[in-house]
């Protein structure tokens, strides 16, 4: 069902935990759908993401995408982090089953939410960043026969 990379990031997730006094924290998803992702960013004065940690309530794909997303934004500038899309996370994981694509969207949203929190705390505006939705659900219905 999952690629080896997904299984690796699920079994040995990178950067699990919290950052005390983080520059930005973002929580997305909802427990109703079974996925909540929280991302912590430590951003230095030059706007470089020095550290990134996460906590996730969710399935194997949700945990693996969180782990990969933290790896992808670490050491990046804010503008570079904004380019870490759900597609980039999926590709880095060698793909996800179709029903799990929303997990990668959640990872992208979690990065954006943490950056939004950082911008608000510092009274700055990040170009290209929109206020993230707090709730991710696709609302797709199965076709009935």
């Amino acid at each position, binding site marked *: 069902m999952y690629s080896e990379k997904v*299984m690796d990031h*699920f*079994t040995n*997730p990178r950067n*699990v935990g*919290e950052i005390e006094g983080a520059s930005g924290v973002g*929580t997305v998803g909802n*427990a*109703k*759908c*079974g*996925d*909540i*992702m*929280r991302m912590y960013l430590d951003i230095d004065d030059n706007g470089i993401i020095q550290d990134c940690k996460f*906590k*996730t*309530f*969710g*399935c*194997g*794909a*949700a*945990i693996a995408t969180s782990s990969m997303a933290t790896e992808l934004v670490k050491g990046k500038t804010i503008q570079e982090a904004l380019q870490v899309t759900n597609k980039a996370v999926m590709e880095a994981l060698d793909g996800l089953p179709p*029903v*799990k694509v929303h997990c990668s969207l959640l990872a992208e949203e979690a990065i954006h939410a943490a950056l939004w929190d950082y911008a608000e705390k510092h009274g700055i505006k990040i170009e290209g960043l929109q206020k993230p939705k707090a709730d991710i*659900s*696709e609302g797709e219905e*199965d076709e009935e026969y």
Partner: protein
Amino acid sequence: MNKVIYLDNAATTKTKPEVVEAMLPYFTEKFGNPSSVYSFASQNRTVVEDARAAIAKTLGAAEKDIYFTAGGSESDNWALKATVEAYKEKGNHIITSKIEHHAILHTCEYLEKQGVEVTYIDVDENGVIKLDELKKAIRPTTILISVMFANNEIGTIQPIKEIGEIAKEHGILFHTDAVQAYGHLPINVDEMHIDMLSASGHKLNGPKGIGFLYIRKGLKLRSFVHGGSQERRRRAGTENVPGIIGLGKAAEIAAATMEERIQHEIKLRDHLIDRILKEVSYVRLNGHRTDRLPNNVNFSFQFIEGESLLIMLDQKGICASSGSACTSGSLDPSHVLLAIGLPHEIAHGSLRLTLSDETTMEEIDFVVEALKEIVARLRSMSPLYEDFVAKNNIPQEA
């Protein structure tokens, strides 16, 4: 431990070697069509009838009232759709429960689109159907009550005899989906006033692709599959002879060993339940504490999600299942867990472990230790647990 610990016997069971052995000659040697005239093939007619008789005996039913099908889903579909068709003069109302298997619920939804009215009765927090609501739901147009014998997810056993009595009093037919219960609990169709009963071979150590529907004599149900004159013209198609032989053998073994098996499974089940409730915090047992299938255990672990749990169990060789949305491909967790009143996030953290007669105490203890470790690990990664700990000033576990 490298071996597989199989605790998903509600999904399917291992076909017993004795069952396979009984079936094998009917593939390569005695492969004849029971409808053929020559003796080589027509002998198979006799063995099919012997299997039918063996099954009838386990239910206290008449032989002629057992009809072989391709399994539980076909039996459920047949019972509901054919009853609606046969009794449309009397009415178009069906009563069922909110925690039925999808073979019943989706058939009911299909029938609703055809103009049939369906009432879905609530269950209490243990998953027991509310009999007062059931009685109130009865209308002059009610033709059928269909309530499962025991629930496939949470194991709760329904008050089948009481439901049968209510149905009988009101002259309403009573069908029960006994897929999880047949071969696991004593059933008598007369004592329980059951008019129709669905069962499936692979849930009782028989083969897949075979099941039956019991239809009480006198019911006007028509054929669901049209064609040849097999099964007293009520279910066309060349008999699945190996499957029927296997189901008959499995039913015989299940009946003969039932008492012993129930004792063994209850002992292990209760040990598992007691240990988990005592040794893991923020956990809930789903389903009735005592009125439950001997082999069923279902927990909800707060703050974690079921699929993650299943994958980590799998990495330790433990096979289990969950009612989490992520295991069903939809965003909603199991309808059964929602019906017993669980909030979504707790339903997502459910785990079902279903034992067999081969499960050992060592395996159960291994599973408890594995669960303790995995639950702690997933909680350490959970933002829900983080919030809970912060809110309640709980010291972090090392």
